[in-house]
């Protein structure tokens, strides 16, 4: 029963290969973070976060891009979270599991999730700007160009479509964690279906709904493609409103690295901006994790 030498070597080699590729993952993360943090750490200051770019964007801060990202994320959430939650409630609470309508909705959600983000951008341009916006202008502003052009609102709505499948799927998962027995208990007490959803199902899954929402938001915060055609601006001297174009962190990085007059001079700002964007998504993800943990802990007490 002595193991043959060749077999033994083969086993070691295979284990080695799997280990190396697993370690590579760690290396990639470490290299990426180190490069970004070393490059950007000197740039991060209160001044950098709160001031406008100056000197052809080679100096100054990135405040308008942070501001634009925040607004984008907020408006996007206001649109996507209620819409997605209501859809998820329909799918888990009302639709019959294998009905044609439920299957069709699920297929549509999966399809939305795999559409490349640039196509969302094109759709936003065609639908929100050229169709909805242009018609608003035609109907209310005598054809004057107001809403028929890229702006914060259309970009946010486009982004909300992109994050919609994430919201729907995570809320659905959260609703499914509420045991069927609790729904039965509520109904047996003479509660209506809606009372059951509002007072038992949603409170029982609120942590899942919140974490899903935050994860969707953090996905949207980093995306650039959907807002390229629908509202992102190269540079603006003022803070935007709903009907204005706006600066945003992800696009600002692209602008600095490829479109600026002097790419080398903007290098520190590129690193700084990347740091900020990473931090933002990191904080969002962490808060989702913490929230989930805290509510879980509260539940088990």
């Amino acid at each position, binding site marked *: 029963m002595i193991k043959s030498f060749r077999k033994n070597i083969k086993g070691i080699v295979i284990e080695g290969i799997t280990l190396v590729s697993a370690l590579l993952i760690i290396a990639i993360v470490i290299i990426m973070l180190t490069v970004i943090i070393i490059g950007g750490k000197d740039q991060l200051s209160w001044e950098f976060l709160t001031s406008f770019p100056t000197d052809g964007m080679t100096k100054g801060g990135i405040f308008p891009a942070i501001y634009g990202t925040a607004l984008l994320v907020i408006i996007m959430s206001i649109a996507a979270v209620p819409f997605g939650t209501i859809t998820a409630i329909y799918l888990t609470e009302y639709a*019959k*599991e294998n009905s044609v309508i439920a299957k069709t909705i699920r297929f549509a959600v999966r399809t939305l999730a795999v559409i490349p983000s640039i196509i969302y951008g094109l759709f936003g341009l065609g639908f929100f700007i050229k169709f909805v916006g242009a018609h608003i202008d035609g109907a209310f502003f005598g054809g004057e160009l107001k809403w028929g052009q890229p702006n914060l609102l259309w970009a946010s709505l486009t982004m909300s479509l992109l994050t919609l499948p994430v919201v729907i799927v995570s809320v659905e998962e959260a609703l499914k964690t509420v*045991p069927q*027995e*609790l729904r*039965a*208990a*509520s*109904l*047996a*007490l*003479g*509660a*209506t279906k809606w*009372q059951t959803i509002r*007072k*038992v199902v949603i*409170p*029982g899954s609120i942590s899942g709904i919140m974490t899903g929402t935050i994860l969707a938001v953090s996905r949207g915060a980093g995306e650039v493609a959907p807002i390229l055609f629908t509202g992102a601006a190269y540079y603006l001297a003022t803070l935007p409103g709903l009907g204005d174009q706006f600066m945003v962190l992800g696009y600002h990085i692209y602008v600095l690295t490829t479109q600026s007059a002097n790419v080398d001079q903007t290098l520190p700002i590129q690193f700084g901006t990347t740091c900020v964007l990473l931090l933002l998504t990191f904080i969002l993800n962490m808060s989702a994790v913490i929230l989930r943990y805290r509510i879980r802990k509260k*539940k*088990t*007490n």
Partner: protein
Amino acid sequence: MIVDKINTEDMFLYYSSKMALNNISIKIPEKKVTAFIGPSGCGKSTFLRSLNRMNDLIDGVKIEGKVIIDNINIYDKNIDVVTLRKKVGMVFQKSNPFAKSIYENVAYGPKINGIKDKSQLDEIVEMALKNAAIWDEVKDRLGDSALGLSGGQQQRLCIARTLAVNPEIVLMDEPASALDPLSTAKIEELIVQLKENYTIVIVTHNMQQAARISDNTAFFYLGELIEYDRTKKIFTNPDKKQTEDYITGRFG
């Protein structure tokens, strides 16, 4: 005089095309404990759940015949299921308190019925907990989570929650099957007390339990009501051989 609270006539129930209940006709008296016994899959729980239309929640269930409660067929088209379930409460096999406080669990039913007055709610909660024989154990911690109670306490809390809606009939689906002997004894004692004010229908696997607490017993087998009589008669001198075989432990 004994009044029939529930009366089914030629009732059939189908899961998709499979017949699960075959021609059930039974009269269940008011303010008595009626026990349903029989082997697993005999239809006793299915029948219990059709008395407050909980089977409506399952896809593909079809019911024929009549289920008459207080002279009204509850399967009539114009019956409001929500009102029916307030009148016909249910306690489940597995205790299923909400992830809320003890107080909120009991106040849930009254609240959805529109009772908002705090002192009135307090009164209902106290009364229900007393009727479910759990008041003394929880009165000092009404604000604590119901999930912190023991299994037996949770089940009595669920009974209190059902009573708080002030039903006339309480259906119990093997309410003590997951409990230890001591908790089971408490639940049984409680059921006997409850029949003073409520009509109790209980499904049980435990034949001694049926013998101890029920006034009438119905034996179900393969979706049919084989025999229904005074509990004493069923357990000492049943008419049908199948009943005798089951209660003497020869099958099931």
